[in-house]
Structures are given as structure tokens and as C-alpha cells.
């Protein structure tokens, strides 16, 4: 079998404007990071709320959050994405549905869909981490807060969550890295993120090995950089004398 190696392919013009193929990787990476960061905001906010609900003494709030986690963790991400992409828009009010389908570009539509999908998917996982973090704190902490006369909301806000978040930085970091990796499913609803751009390059140039190698290495490099960055953050935020759980 013949295969023509050509590592110079990335600097060749694509034929579209003055772009070279390397530009596709850059725009793909930007799209990946954009989707991942937007989804992370949703995941962090919703996941924290759900995690607090899971840790509350009342049964109802805890059950609702528990059901959410069960639902979003037991359906494959790809199926969830297709539900958001093919099913949900038809259930929305007409004006919103039309806006999604007609008024905005397909790419923007895909971006919004993927962001919501990944955000809600990851919220279930963040919820479990937040709950674990809160439950890892000694019971005396919330009692001490309450004994000082703080209302429960303030106990969470000022006593429990600041400690819990420090404990769960390592697992949260890996959840963020997971969002970046999971965002690659967006290539299946035509969002031009990193994997989609890599595949497009494969189709255009027939230099599959080079394209996939570089695409993979970009994911790898982003992962490594973020991991080292978060280790550094974790060290800076460490409270002297406080033992971190789940740290390495």
C-alpha cells in the first residue's frame, strides 16, 4: 500500500481565501475551547446548586437533584445531544423554535445546542463532586456556623462551599478536561470544532496520518497545559494545615 507522507501539508493553501490548512486547526481549537468554556459555566452553576440540594437535610430537594443525576448520567452523551438537536427545538414555543431553526446560522444553532447539552450533562457530574466535597467536611463545621447564628444559606455560602471547592479542585479539573474531550461529539452535528476540522482536513488532503496526528496532539497539549495550570492554582489556593481529599 502506498502512502505519501507530507508534513508540509499544513502550510499549503486550502483554496478558500488566503487560508492555509493550519488555520483550520486554529479555528477548530477556538471553537472547541469556546464551547467547552460556555458549557463549563452552565455546568458549574447548575452543578453547584444541584450539589447543595443533594446535601440538604430535606428529602424533596435531595430527591429532585438525585433524579437529575440519574437521568443525565445514564443516557449516552451522543443520544442526549441528538435529543437537544433533533427533538427539543420542536417542543419549544414557536417563536423560539423558529429563531433557532431559521433566524440564526446553523453554526450558531449547533453552538447553542452543544453548549446546553454539554453543560447539563456535566452539571450532573459536578453535582456529585460538590456533594462529595460538602459531605467530606466534618459535621461540626455546619453546626459551628449555625451556632454562630448564620442562616443555612450563609453557612453554605461562607463556611461549607469555600472549603468544599478547595477539596474538589482536582476532580473538577478533570471534569473540565472531560468537557473539552466530550465537546468532540459536536462534530456529529456539524459544529466546526477541532475534531470536525481535522476530519475535514482528512477529506481535503488525503494526508490522514498527518492530520489525525496533529489533531490528537493538540488535544493532548491542551490537556497537559490545563492540568499543570490547575495544579498550580490548587497549590495557591491551599489553606495551610488543611488536608486535601482526593489530591495526589
Amino acid at each position, binding site marked *: *500500500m502506498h*502512502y505519501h507522507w507530507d508534513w508540509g501539508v499544513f502550510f499549503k493553501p486550502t483554496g478558500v481565501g488566503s487560508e492555509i490548512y493550519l488555520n483550520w486547526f486554529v479555528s477548530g481549537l477556538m471553537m472547541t475551547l469556546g464551547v467547552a468554556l460556555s458549557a463549563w459555566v452552565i455546568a458549574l452553576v447548575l452543578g453547584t446548586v444541584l450539589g447543595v440540594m443533594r446535601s440538604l437535610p430535606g428529602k424533596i430537594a435531595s430527591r429532585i437533584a438525585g433524579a437529575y443525576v*440519574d*437521568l443525565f*448520567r*445514564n*443516557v*449516552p*452523551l*451522543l*443520544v*442526549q445531544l*441528538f*435529543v437537544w438537536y*433533533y*427533538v427539543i427545538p*420542536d417542543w419549544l414555543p414557536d417563536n423560539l423554535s423558529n429563531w433557532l431553526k431559521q433566524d440564526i446560522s446553523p453554526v450558531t444553532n449547533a453552538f447553542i445546542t452543544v453548549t446546553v447539552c454539554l453543560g447539563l450533562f456535566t452539571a450532573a457530574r459536578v453535582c456529585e463532586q460538590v456533594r462529595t466535597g460538602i459531605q467530606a467536611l466534618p459535621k461540626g463545621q455546619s453546626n459551628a456556623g449555625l451556632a454562630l447564628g448564620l442562616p443555612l444559606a450563609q453557612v453554605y455560602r461562607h463556611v461549607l462551599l469555600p472549603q468544599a471547592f478547595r477539596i474538589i479542585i482536582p476532580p473538577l479539573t478533570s471534569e473540565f*478536561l472531560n468537557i*473539552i*474531550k*466530550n*465537546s*468532540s*461529539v459536536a*462534530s*456529529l452535528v456539524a459544529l466546526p470544532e477541532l*475534531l470536525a476540522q*481535522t*476530519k475535514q482536513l*482528512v477529506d481535503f488532503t488525503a494526508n*490522514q*496520518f498527518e492530520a*489525525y496526528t496533529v*489533531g*490528537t496532539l493538540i*488535544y*493532548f497539549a491542551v*490537556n*497537559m497545559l490545563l*492540568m499543570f495550570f490547575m495544579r498550580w492554582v490548587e497549590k495557591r489556593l491551599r489553606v495551610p494545615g488543611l488536608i486535601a481529599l482526593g489530591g495526589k
Partner: protein
Amino acid sequence: MLHFSDLQGSLPGLWEGMKVTLQMLIMAVLGGMILGTLLALARLSHNKVLAALGGAYVTYFRSIPLLMVISWFYFAVPLIIGWVTGTNRPIGAFTSCLVAFTMFEAAYYAEIVRAGIQAISRGQMNAAYALGMTYGQTMRLVVLPQAFRKMTPLLLQQSIILFQDTSLVYAVGVLDFFNVAYSKGNITGELQQYILLAGAVYFVISFSASRLVKHLQKRMTV
């Protein structure tokens, strides 16, 4: 809203798809666990080169998306097998995906197995060595049987994740359960119904399986 014109007619096809999904799952779980165990042993080995190679493998596969691996292997596995064997026999998408899942999941299983081995006290290894056992015997007869018992819930949990992840073979056209459901939906014009149906089926299986694992975990800790 969830009206199917001919669900009964679709059932045999869906069942065929489910068989493909389960076949992929079982083979990838077995392959992944075996490769993962070897990787874990490599990472814990006193041989620095072996440990570094094992570590690099695990770190690498854990930092790239599964879908990327599936897409890449879909085209690379047939080429590589062709180069190695010198033949031009076509390799199906199923085989490529199986190789991708096995190699990818092995990295995740390896971390579970490594933690399991490290949880067995040094004294157990010493006792086995003191009885004259070799490294291989110590691992096979004393350490791994205990480690696997402790790890069973985690290994099963990871396998449930893998079960869900098998749906990604849709990307390269393997007719697994999800892809069959999607195609049926496209043909009959009832795409939404079929997607929701697929979601419900995945949910029921994963949910019951994880409940079983939780139950098992509780029983084991007693």
C-alpha cells in the same frame, strides 16, 4: 406524541443492533481489562523504562477524546494491518472500533487496577515472597485476586460508561443499537420518536446496572 407507525416491524432490526452493541461491549471490556492490567503492572514495575512507557500510554489516551480515537482508528487500523500482513483485505468498521475501544478503555482500567494493587499492603507481598513465590506467582496468586475483588464495583462502573460510549460508533457507520434506531427514524420520518426510544433503552439498562453495582458495593463493604 410518541407514536410509532410500525414499531413492531422495527424490533428485529433494533435487536440486531443491540446484539452488535453488546458484542462490542463484551469484547472491549475483556480486551480492555487484560491490556489495562498489563499496563498497571508495567506502571508499577521496578523497570523504569517499562514504568515510563506504561505511564505515557495511560496519560496519552486519557487526554484525547474517544471520538477522535474512533475516527482515527477507523482509517488507521486497516492501513496498519495491511502494512503488517502485507495483504489488502478490507477490515470492517467493527474491528477498527473494537481496537479503538480496547486501547482507549485499557488506559482507564489501568488506573483502576493500579489503585487496586496499591491498596494491597506491602506485607501481603512480603509474605508471598517469604514463602518462596516469584514475582509472577505473587501477583497472580496473592495480589491480583485480592485487588480485583476490591476493584469489582469500579470496573463494572467503568464498563457501564463504556456501554454508553459504544453509541459513538455511529460516527463511522457501525450498525449498533443507536445507529439502527437513528436509521429507522430517518426512514420512517419518525426520527424524534426513535431517538427518544433509544435514550429510554440506554437509560433503563445503565440505570439498572448501576443500581446493581451499588447494591453489590454495599454488600461487599459489610
